[in-house]
């Protein structure tokens, strides 16, 4: 961690010198400087908002924690100007292998095609991701990041939220039009809002060990059912930067956490797995988990995002990645509402879209967990049958569930305009934009996701072919592919991935999701789709 700063100082802010009756007003306060809060603050600031970002600690948390960042998260971070730094440091991977006992059952490739700027996943210790995000925050004068500022009380008023904040210098108050709580699974703001957080708790315990060693394993995700080195349980191996390997071992439900965590007890297990003893521990942690979410992600003027709003099991990399999807979903909506461009009701679509995504993530990760740790003898029997059938049948392989990895949800949302034309493929309204390789007229390579960022990550019309598509409405960017002056789609992949014909146009939301698509849009149809996507009905 030598090249990154992880310790930060508390600094007194002039807001603290104001009387409680004369508290400073801020448009938006983000609570929690983890990956979600930091990313949200950057997105808001890049859209021109002033953001106060509060964190109760003065340092970045220890341990690698969330290590798998998805293609979608990397594309979001590209928009925030830090995607490349993450990828440069991270370990790129797209292949996963599933083993049963000593033999391989099957392998999968999460991104089997070329022509995407970003890989399926990178592995990167969470502390690196946070450190890079903090570096980016420090480049943005519109973000006021206050360490050692702990929200102690929250009071909802008609047109603002009053926050009482504890600091080393004592408490002070600020007012915010909106508060976004990104303060993690044990969210204190959630408790202050009096919100329920009900769900399913899992009894099985898992042990994480980050191990430093030189090893020849490929950069793939390896998952074992009943491995020879850990009979009857499951195990997971991931490569991280700096020669660190993440090893995840399932323990018995009745294992004693204090005993299991002792390095002298972990060491023999890992040695059995690796077949040697030449490694050092970087971090050992034991965890149980729950799958649950808040009923409502919005409580008055307080909006919940990331682990504060929903928790999943770790199998599938759906925790941090879904939190980042929350951030990119709420950022542009809050920005529009704060500018008065959209009514406050637009924010409801954040709950609609992201709570459905949370349900999907909970469903998927619960299924994976149940497969790894069957809850009854009959479930264990069915799993045994699947694992055994997987050796000789295709359907058996596909039923083996060693974690289904995070992909962006497709939103059923009032912001979408339903298809009226005929489509054979391409992303439907509510789906995120697929990437594609293109070149500029001068031959310079440019990915579609890069062109989207160049347009300012606002509402953007993606139009194919010569002028048949109507002009984009005001303040809507245009990406033209093909025709006399558009990007060159030499490989034909943009056209193929969007099922494009000359005249085809997609209306993309500021978060890169499809709002509407047309074979030959009229200006009236585009205007209507834009109003709908902006929550103006």
């Amino acid at each position: 961690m030598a090249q990154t700063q992880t310790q930060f100082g508390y600094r007194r802010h002039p807001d603290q010198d104001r009387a409680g009756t004369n508290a400073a007003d801020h448009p938006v306060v983000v609570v929690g400087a983890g990956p979600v809060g930091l990313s949200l603050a950057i997105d808001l600031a890049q859209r021109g908002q002033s953001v106060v970002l509060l964190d109760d600690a003065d340092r970045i948390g220890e341990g690698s924690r969330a290590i798998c960042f998805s293609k979608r998260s990397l594309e979001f971070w590209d928009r925030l100007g830090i995607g490349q730094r993450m990828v440069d440091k991270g370990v790129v991977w797209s292949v996963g292998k599933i083993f049963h006992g000593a033999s391989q059952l099957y392998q999968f490739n999460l991104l089997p095609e070329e022509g995407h700027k970003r890989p399926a996943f990178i592995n990167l210790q969470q502390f690196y991701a946070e450190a890079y995000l903090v570096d980016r925050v420090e480049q943005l004068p519109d973000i006021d990041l206050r360490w050692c500022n702990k929200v102690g009380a929250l009071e909802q008023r008609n047109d603002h939220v009053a926050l009482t904040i504890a600091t080393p210098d004592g408490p002070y108050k600020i007012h915010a039009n909106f508060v976004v709580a990104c303060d993690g699974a044990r969210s204190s703001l959630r408790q202050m809002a009096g919100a329920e957080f009900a769900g399913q708790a899992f009894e099985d315990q898992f042990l994480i060990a980050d191990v430093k060693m030189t090893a020849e394993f490929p950069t793939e995700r390896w998952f074992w059912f009943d491995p020879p080195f850990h009979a009857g349980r499951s195990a997971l191996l991931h490569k991280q930067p700096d020669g660190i390997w993440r090893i995840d071992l399932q323990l018995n439900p009745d294992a004693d956490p204090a005993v299991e965590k002792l390095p002298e007890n972990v060491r023999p297990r890992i040695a059995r797995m690796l077949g040697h003893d030449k490694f050092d521990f970087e971090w050992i942690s034991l965890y149980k988990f729950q799958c649950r979410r808040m009923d409502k992600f919005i409580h008055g003027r307080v909006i919940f995002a990331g682990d504060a709003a929903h928790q999943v099991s770790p199998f599938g990399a759906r925790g941090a990645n879904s939190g980042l999807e929350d951030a990119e979903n709420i950022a542009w909506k809050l920005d529009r509402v704060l500018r008065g461009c959209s009514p406050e009701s637009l924010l409801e679509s954040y709950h609609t879209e992201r709570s459905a995504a949370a349900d999907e993530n909970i469903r998927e990760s619960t299924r994976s967990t149940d497969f790894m740790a069957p809850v009854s003898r009959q479930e264990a029997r069915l799993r045994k049958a699947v694992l055994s059938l997987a050796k000789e049948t295709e359907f058996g392989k596909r039923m083996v569930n060693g974690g289904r990895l995070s992909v962006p949800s497709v939103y059923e949302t009032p912001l979408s305009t339903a298809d009226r034309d005929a489509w054979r493929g391409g992303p439907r309204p509510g789906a995120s934009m697929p990437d594609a390789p293109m070149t500029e007229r001068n031959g310079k390579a440019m990915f579609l996701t890069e062109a989207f960022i160049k347009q300012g990550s606002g509402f953007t019309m993606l139009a194919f072919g010569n002028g048949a598509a109507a002009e984009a409405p005001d303040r809507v960017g245009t990406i033209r592919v093909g025709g006399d002056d558009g990007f060159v789609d030499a490989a034909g992949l943009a056209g193929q991935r969007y099922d494009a014909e000359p005249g085809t146009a997609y209306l993309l939301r500021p978060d890169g999701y499809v709002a509407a698509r047309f074979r030959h849009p009229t200006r009236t149809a585009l205007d209507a789709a834009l109003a709908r996507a902006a929550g103006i009905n």
Partner: protein
Amino acid sequence: MALSTSSNFAKPDDAFRAIVEAHRGLSEAQSADLDAALVLVLANHIGDLDVLREAIELAKRRMLDASLQQQQQQQ
């Protein structure tokens, strides 16, 4: 497609027999393993979630009937 409950085998006795014979000589645990594998193989062959759900519902009604019967006997 709906679940077919009309008789589909030309010789239903042969089909029943084939299943019964598959279980001959197996312990209870082995039989349960065989059933689990067989259910998965057949479910995949059907390949239709609605039909599968209907089949589960029809099969599960036996559990309900059995518990009702038990209750009645106890009364």
